[in-house]
């Protein structure tokens, strides 16, 4: 039987088509919609998308086979992606993979016999500051420990989606959290401000993304061998645009060290991007 999108998804596809000057541009979003409905992309879906977007079937097939996230075979009800790339590996991704394999009784790339869970490894999921991490369906689970990993795997093996920390934290208005910016310098009318260096170690800018894992307390003191400790130099508040109220910087000493002599830098010719961007 030919594949058809559900009415809501079909409406969504019509809306997506209005965003682009060509129908082809909707190819990847359309495939995502179909995969959301069906779990994986089969030949019927490829035909459906090709017909809908007036593309050759070969084009759509080419797109499906290029991108990792289009499943070309049926997968389990839930998909678990373990990030295995270097920053996560440095924080124990190898143990995460081994633990998942042991608990689920499958190897990477396989699906449990009851069809509930598919285990895969992923290349860097942009969560290096909160490593190790796994992605379960659409949710990130970061700063994993064996205990939190076990909780996730337990609910997965029962066939339930584990509580998504990030997305569920985003949904209801969270309780007032300690304002991270409290230690910053007097608020400037610019909105942000430059914080003078202090002797206390600075906090990362995001509580949820800050790593407190593997038994390392977040309040750890600076190591004794911290070399070249910078002297507590205070910097003036940033200057303000002309139209704004006059600045009111506290009288502060200039920086202690001699500023580097200005260097003439050769103007580079039309040099284009040399590197795939992150």
């Amino acid at each position: 039987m030919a594949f058809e999108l559900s009415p809501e998804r079909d409406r969504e596809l019509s809306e997506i088509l209005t965003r682009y000057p060509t129908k082809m541009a909707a190819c990847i979003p359309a495939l995502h919609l179909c995969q959301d409905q069906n779990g994986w992309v089969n030949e019927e879906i490829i035909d459906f998308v090709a017909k809908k977007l007036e593309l050759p079937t070969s084009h759509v097939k080419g797109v499906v086979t290029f991108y990792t996230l289009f499943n070309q075979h049926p997968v389990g009800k839930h998909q678990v992606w373990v990030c295995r790339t270097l920053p996560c590996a440095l924080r124990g991704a190898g143990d995460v993979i081994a633990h998942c394999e042991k608990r689920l009784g499958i190897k990477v790339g396989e699906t449990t016999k009851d069809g509930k869970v598919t285990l895969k490894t992923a290349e860097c999921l942009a969560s290096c500051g909160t490593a190790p991490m796994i992605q379960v369906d659409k949710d990130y689970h970061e700063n994993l420990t064996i205990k939190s990993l076990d909780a996730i795997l337990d609910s997965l093996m029962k066939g339930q989606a584990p509580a998504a920390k990030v997305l569920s934290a985003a949904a209801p208005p969270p309780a007032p959290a300690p304002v991270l910016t409290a230690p910053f310098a007097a608020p400037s009318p610019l909105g942000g401000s430059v914080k003078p260096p202090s002797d206390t170690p600075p906090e990362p800018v995001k509580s949820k993304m800050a790593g407190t894992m593997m038994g390392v307390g977040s309040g750890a003191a600076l190591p004794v061998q911290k070399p070249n400790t910078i002297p507590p130099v205070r910097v003036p508040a940033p200057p303000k645009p002309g139209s704004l109220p006059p600045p009111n910087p506290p009288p502060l000493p200039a920086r202690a060290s001699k500023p580097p002599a200005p260097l003439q830098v050769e103007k580079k010719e039309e040099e284009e991007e040399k590197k795939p961007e992150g």
Partner: protein
Amino acid sequence: MLKQTNYLTKVYGLPQGWKLAAYERELRGYEAAKKVLTTMQPADVVAEAKKANIRGRGGAGFPMGVKWSFMKPHPTKPAYLVINADEGEPGTHKDRTIMEENPHSVIEGCIIGCYAIGAHVAYVYVRDELHLSKARLWEAIEEAKAKGYLGKKPFGKDFAVDVVVHTGAGAYICGEETSLLNSLEGRRGEPRLKPPFPAQSGAFACPTTVNNLETIAAVPTAFIMGCEEFSKLSSIHHLNDGGVRLFGVNGHVKKPGVYECCVGLTLRELIFDLGGGILGDKGLHSVIPGGSSTPVLRADDLVDAPDPKSPVHEWHGKSVLDVPLGVDTFRNLGTMLGTCCATVMAEGTDPVACFHNLMQFYRHESCGQCTPCREGSGWLLRIADKLMEGTCTMEELNDLHDIANNIMGNTICAFGEGTAMPALGYLKKYRKEFEAYVRGDKKGKDAKLALEPLS
């Protein structure tokens, strides 16, 4: 020089900090866009943007204002602004925080960017895995539209601007700008030959500017402050590397995370002051300064720049850890600044295991279009596998150099260099360790990357 700021990050962690209300209250949201659209001409916006000295935050470090100035109005074709948020470089985790915690800075940056280059649509290309980021961006777009900041007449100005979130489907290569454009058009994400450059023929064969997400998010701050003042916040402003940016640190540090600081921070400050030092108070082994494609630096590396004209001459003979993190400074250290998110390795980490891990990444992510990269990345991994298995010979170890050198410069896009450079970096700096594997003094099964078992 360590100067922490919070121009972007003030709303991070606040309750509902990603909402328009918080952005307007804490960071004077949309004032810059209003000022630009109601009082400035597009040409002046570009001229002003050049003064901010914002170097592209995606890895190549191309000056943003200069890139905008390449855009010339076309008689028949529309122009497009495309924002690259396909963050996937191993070790890079900064763009995701902006999208999740301060999405309105991206939208405001897009409004200013569109106006400057004459585009009416901005596409934000987000990698598909980042579902929360996409949701937050869409929410921000809706909020901005409801307020009349986006749409047919933003701030009453007759200049329509729309922002659309587009998603990929899990391909690292789509972070390369021409590949991203192919993916946006609904094709396989294979890089295009340049020229034509995107400014002449980009998305849908129309003039296009591709900016990194962090680059565009920095624009409102620069315009509200005055671009020249923004640039001067940097301590290497004289090297045309200005403003503030996000610095990430991950790996074997006590407090991994993202920190906003003035440009000019050194690696030592990033690792020991912001990152809290090395786990277990161990010594520093090596650091990858800005994503896995940037060659590794050893902890004992010294700056070798006897030429007074070199931007890093000032630090000649000093440790590389004391050089300010800048695009030109790090290029002169034989590595690159990349995305400015450092991966730190503590003493005892096995460099050959790191090399093996990274080669797996590049083998997996090569798009397969150019033979040197498609085959070369596989050969590099095969030899790395043999090293770990203990079956690699000295000839094969030497072949690694040949293979890497033959990928360099022989591919359409820079992924080839991105594979070969870190490979050559590891080979050059850790030859002894590689030889120990060939001789059998070290075994792959003993190689550990994590300092201690996960508890």
